[in-house]
């Protein structure tokens, strides 16, 4: 379990990081928390020639609300998200996501930016960010570029980041009136990837009609994806048990899980149905102002 040899460089600023990325291109990998990268290097699934350690770049660890958005620095550790009262009370879907990632020791190192930039469909933040309609801030030679989360996962294990760009911030629209979200994950044991997980974020009007809904799926599609047909079935309708059941079936239908050690494709697809139902129910309860 020894990684292939590489050149280790510590970057002290974003400009230095971008300069190193521009120089080394796809031979370089950014090391933030390292909780996905280092295991991949130990298995020699990744053999970067250059490692750019950005832990020395200051100003990338923050959680704050401004301009009608929650803004999270890319180097923010999962443990910090878990401990944030702003996240816990204002964005319970994000709290629920952070606290089921890997285990507490891993979450002391793992970063939200790394979780997204790794673009692993089994990671938890992608589905939640799809549900929240987040925007990714990428910093490159020409400054910042905003990437809608819907365009951030173009293909298998690939992100929309250019080789000379680094993910610096995640922006999440502040929840409006009667908005609620939930993330529900089913895993074999602490530390494992999800067998399946579903993220739901929706908004109700005063008459309980759903006026917006976004649903993200974890580890049941080749790239992090939304269950668009399930979303469409909810929008414009009053939320009833039947509407939730119908949307859950559509979410399951839209998933495309593979049989593996975590279960058969049939089992996982039905799990998506069950989890989608629970997540929609919890999101609706929160939107109505119910308890978390």
């Amino acid at each position, binding site marked *: *379990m*020894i*990684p*292939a*040899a*590489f*050149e*280790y460089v*510590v970057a002290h600023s974003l400009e230095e990081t971008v300069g190193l990325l521009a120089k080394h291109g796809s031979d370089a990998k950014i*090391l933030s928390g*390292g*909780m996905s990268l*280092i*295991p991949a*290097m*130990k298995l020699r699934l990744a053999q970067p020639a250059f*490692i750019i*350690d950005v*832990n020395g770049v200051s100003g990338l660890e923050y959680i704050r609300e401004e301009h009608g958005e929650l803004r999270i620095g890319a180097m923010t550790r999962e*443990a910090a998200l878990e401990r944030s009262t702003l996240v816990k009370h204002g964005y319970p879907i994000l709290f629920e996501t952070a606290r089921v990632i*890997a*285990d*507490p*020791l*891993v979450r*002391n*190192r793992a970063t939200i930016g790394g979780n997204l930039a790794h673009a692993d469909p089994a990671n938890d933040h992608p589905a939640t960010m799809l549900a929240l309609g987040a925007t990714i801030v990428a910093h490159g030679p020409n400054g910042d570029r905003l990437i809608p989360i819907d365009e951030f996962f173009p293909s298998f294990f690939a992100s929309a980041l250019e080789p000379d760009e680094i993910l610096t911030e995640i922006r999440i629209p502040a929840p409006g009136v009667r908005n609620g979200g939930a993330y529900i994950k089913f895993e074999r044991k*602490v*530390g494992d990837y999800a067998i399946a997980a579903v993220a739901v974020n929706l908004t109700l009007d005063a008459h309980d009609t759903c006026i917006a809904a976004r649903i993200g799926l974890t580890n049941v599609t080749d790239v992090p994806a939304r269950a668009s047909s399930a979303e469409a079935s909810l929008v414009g309708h009053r939320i009833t048990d039947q509407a939730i059941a119908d949307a859950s079936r559509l979410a399951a239908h839209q998933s495309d899980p593979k049989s593996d050690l975590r279960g058969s494709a049939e089992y996982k697809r039905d799990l998506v149905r069950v989890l989608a139902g629970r997540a929609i129910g919890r999101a609706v309860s929160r939107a109505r102002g119910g308890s978390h």
Partner: protein
Amino acid sequence: MSMRTVNFTINGEAKSVQAESRQLLVHCIRETLGLTGTHVGCETSHCGACTIDLDGEPVKSCTMFAVQAEGKSLTTVEGLAVGGTLNPVQEGFWEEHGLQCGFCTPGMMITATALLRTVNEPTETEIREAISGNLCRCTGYVNIVKAIQYAQRKMHPTPAPEAVLQGGD
């Protein structure tokens, strides 16, 4: 081979070591410094046998490079006892039979010590969540939880309830 000089503090002692970039921190601790109390278990970031304290937080030292320890303060199991006296967590593991084979114990105790430093009175659920990244495959978690609760009581004793209990007859 890309070698670097890495400076850090471990168990209160300043160290300067030579490390290849790809050397994992746990190997630096065990092989370069000879501190073999930190164990190598799964090597895949799952088991927590390699847990050390890094600037006050428990982390898996098999999933960090030694070069990342530059300027950091590390504590391993060898640093828990002070002046030959076991720390409350170590004492708890002794008193409550919190180990059998002992393989997971150093990591467990590092995690538990960090927990009790930040949370005064963790519930059993909080204790179990805190050690969920440390796997034990023989003792089982019951006595490990008791050991941590022992340490909690030792560190934060509550007023003795005897007065109330003995007030009857």
